């Protein structure tokens, strides 16, 4: 700081030195009495140093003030009083930019909120026709109705995904941990997909024992439904097995499996892998959301698979690093 200050005053110091040299030289070459210079040199030197010290302290005070307000969101109005034309100009400029910036931020926030509100409303809106169709299809007993019902369930899931996706970014306040029965949560999800199990003639080996866990039911349900939906999508014969092993919920299927090189990236956003590329609808969002939600819930999720033999997804439901409230 001091060095920088002195540097900025180099011109003044230089000028002072030049005057001293010039006057001294003039006296010397004209054989005048050099002693006569001692007093004025001392005096102007002292005044000059005092001047520099005072200037330094002023600059330092300003510097500290600016440093302090740099953490503020609202900088304008807290700037130090400008002491010359340049500073005045800069202050004006900062205040103008600050105004523009806060305007943009608030318009961005408004737009985000608008979009959020719209998504929320849209989800509610579309659920009405979905409900109407579901009720009609429920009262029909044909193969076509069964197929339409499972397709409708997929639509319902995609709709749910929109809300989940928007909410994912919002803070942890959306998570409410309560004691819940894992068996009930899983059963509910399985019931939801029963039409598809039956349509595809898949056997369900349901081996979930009663287990009390601390969780947010809504988010966990989304994850389980997503995983079940994946298993159903990629399993055309055989079984899906759901069981609890060592505090982990495991969903295992005898489906087409996942290529080994796809597994490490399977939870990446937008990554669809080989299976996803075969299925044109795959967005690479589903598992990404599952991973994010598990992270937020404090669960570990992992996948193991063999092409042609099946896939097994494991969620560890213990949260060792957190205390329950």
């Amino acid at each position: 700081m001091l060095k920088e200050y002195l540097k900025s005053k180099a011109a003044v110091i230089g000028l002072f030195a030049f005057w001293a040299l010039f006057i001294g030289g003039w006296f010397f070459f004209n054989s005048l009495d050099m002693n006569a210079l001692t007093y004025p040199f001392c005096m102007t030197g002292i005044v000059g140093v005092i001047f520099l010290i005072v200037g330094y302290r002023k600059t330092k005070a300003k510097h500290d003030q600016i440093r302090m307000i740099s953490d503020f969101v609202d900088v304008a109005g807290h700037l130090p009083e400008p002491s010359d034309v340049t500073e005045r100009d800069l202050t004006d400029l900062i205040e103008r930019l600050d105004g523009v910036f806060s305007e943009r931020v608030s318009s961005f926030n408004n737009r985000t909120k608008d979009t959020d509100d719209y998504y929320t409303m849209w989800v509610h809106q579309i659920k009405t026709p979905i409900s109407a169709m579901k009720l009609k299809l429920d009262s029909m007993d044909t193969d076509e109705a069964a197929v339409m019902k499972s397709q409708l369930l997929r639509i319902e899931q995609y709709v749910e995904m929109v809300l989940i996706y928007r909410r994912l970014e919002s803070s942890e306040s959306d998570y409410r941990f309560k004691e819940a029965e894992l068996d009930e949560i899983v059963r509910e999800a399985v019931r939801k997909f029963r039409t598809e199990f039956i349509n595809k003639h898949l056997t369900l080996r349901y081996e979930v024992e009663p287990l009390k866990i601390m969780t947010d039911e809504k988010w966990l349900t989304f994850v389980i439904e997503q995983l079940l939906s994946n298993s159903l999508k990629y399993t055309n014969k055989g079984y899906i097995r759901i069981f609890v092993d060592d505090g982990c919920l495991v969903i295992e299927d005898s489906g087409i499996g996942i290529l080994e090189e796809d597994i490490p990236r399977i939870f990446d956003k937008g990554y669809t892998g080989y299976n996803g590329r075969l299925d044109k609808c795959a967005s690479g969002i589903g598992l990404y959301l599952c991973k994010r939600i598990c992270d937020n819930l404090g669960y570990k999720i992992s996948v193991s698979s063999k092409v042609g033999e099946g896939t097994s997804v494991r969620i560890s439901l213990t949260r060792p690093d957190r205390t329950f409230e």
Partner: protein
Amino acid sequence: MYRIFLVEDDSDIAGSIAEAVKAWDYSVHIVSDFHNVMKEFSIVDPHLVLMDISLPFFNGYHWCTKIREISKIPILFLSSASDNMNQVMAINLGADDFIAKPFDINVLTAKIQAALRRAYDFGNEVKIISCRGAVLNVGSNTLEYNGERIEMSKNEYRILYELMSNKGKLVSRSKLMESLWATDDFVDENTLSVNVNRLRKKLENAGLKDLITTKVGRGYIVEDTDA
């Protein structure tokens, strides 16, 4: 007969609910004037209310509050706005339950029954379905024929219930499986066949041979001989 007051502005949904609920011998009134729901309410004087949240003119919360000013009957909310806020709000305003759309019609009827049972002690009113002199008692899950009681497992009862309540209509195997899955029995096709055969044998022993007819490759039917 219980009267149900249905406040739902989507006519397709309202129609489907009314149809499903009528099968349980409830009479349903679908609100037509959403300006003045209370007028219809006092005319119908229902036992239970099914209430949507987003309605024309006033929302469901408004009408819930209005109803609570004059009545304590069960109110069940039906809504697509299923986030915690809305549920909490509905319950705070005096709703008895909250059912998220899209819902399963079986879940809805089960919740209606539960609410009615809590409010009116509906043990003394039992629903029965009969066919060829065989009487299926829906409350107690039993079948009686010639004054004799035929013991059935949960699955067998469920299958017979599904067939008898659709008597005269073909019920596909998938439909039967769905109905078993809905009550948490995740059976496969073999198990269904085993269950149906066992049920048949029991019926045959009780003198109800061929109550259930197989339509190969399509499903089963209980003929409506009473009609």
